[in-house]
């Protein structure tokens, strides 16, 4: 890599486009293991999932409000995953970001890492004219009392996986199928607030710029095959 202006740390960016949750989860686990072995560089995956409901470590099935029939009809899958947090919905119109980075090389501070993801989300929304904030005692990022982004990270061997999901233009009837964090929380998308269609790609671009500014990562766009075949990069 050409060392351009300021000092940036080497973190790759793979934009996966639209992908199934389960496939992406397997990919995260593979990349996570290879990052722990030092076989690959840090990488950030961005993706838009097909509809799925996932339960984190503190998730309760009581927070799923849809019946099996409703889920089947809407083509929504359900998974238990190892990230922190409760129930979450992912689907079309949502920007999902999975950083697979070794925190020992980025400050070794779990709280700072999560705060950085939140700050990036808030900054991205600010550039779209949306005033978002953290709420004490409530995970995620909020616009007033409505949740616009979910955060849940998993760290093993100091390497992260999972991450955050930002609602750009999500089907509200799918959100109504869960009770996020077990609370009667209202969820909202960017498109709903600004009152017009917002392309996911535009939000993605701004978010990646935000990560560069927040963490000092270079986030060179690469293809997945380059990451999986990159002993030379690490």
């Amino acid at each position, binding site marked *: 890599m050409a060392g351009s202006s300021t000092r940036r740390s080497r973190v790759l960016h793979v934009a996966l486009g639209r992908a199934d949750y389960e496939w992406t989860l397997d990919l995260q686990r593979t990349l996570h293991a290879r990052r722990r072995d030092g076989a690959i560089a840090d990488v950030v995956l961005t993706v838009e999932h097909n509809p799925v409901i996932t339960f984190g470590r503190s998730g309760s099935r009581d927070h799923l409000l849809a019946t099996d029939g409703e889920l089947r009809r809407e083509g929504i899958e359900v998974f238990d995953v190892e990230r922190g947090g409760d129930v979450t919905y992912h689907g079309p119109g949502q920007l999902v970001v999975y950083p697979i980075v070794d925190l020992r090389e980025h400050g070794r501070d*779990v709280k700072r890492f999560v705060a950085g993801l939140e700050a990036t989300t808030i900054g991205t929304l600010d550039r779209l004219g949306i005033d978002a904030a953290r709420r004490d005692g409530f995970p995620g990022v909020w616009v007033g009392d409505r949740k616009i982004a979910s955060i849940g990270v998993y*760290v093993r061997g100091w390497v992260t996986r999972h991450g955050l999901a930002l609602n750009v233009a999500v089907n509200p009837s799918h959100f109504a199928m869960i009770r996020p964090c077990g609370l009667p929380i209202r969820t909202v998308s960017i498109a709903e607030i600004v009152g017009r269609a917002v392309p996911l790609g535009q939000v993605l671009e701004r978010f990646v710029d935000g990560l560069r500014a927040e963490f000092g990562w270079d986030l060179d766009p690469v293809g997945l095959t380059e990451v999986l075949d990159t002993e030379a990069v690490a």
Partner: protein
Amino acid sequence: METQLEIRLPDLGDVDMVRVVAWLVEAGTSVAEGDDLVEVETEKTTFVVPAPFAGRLVEVVAAEGATLERGGLLGRIEHPA
């Protein structure tokens, strides 16, 4: 002669309260250094605490659901001297 060594929360950075989510090994089990020992949750993050040394997990001090402050005691490992 065996020594009992304390397993304490590793330094996760500037975090306050940490909750024990799940022990991944049962008391009485032998572990190698670096084995996954217990999952804790803080700041929207699940963190897998590795065994700080080899030995037998003899006591779980912080049970699942317990909350700990920085450097809190998780359990004890008996280390063959």
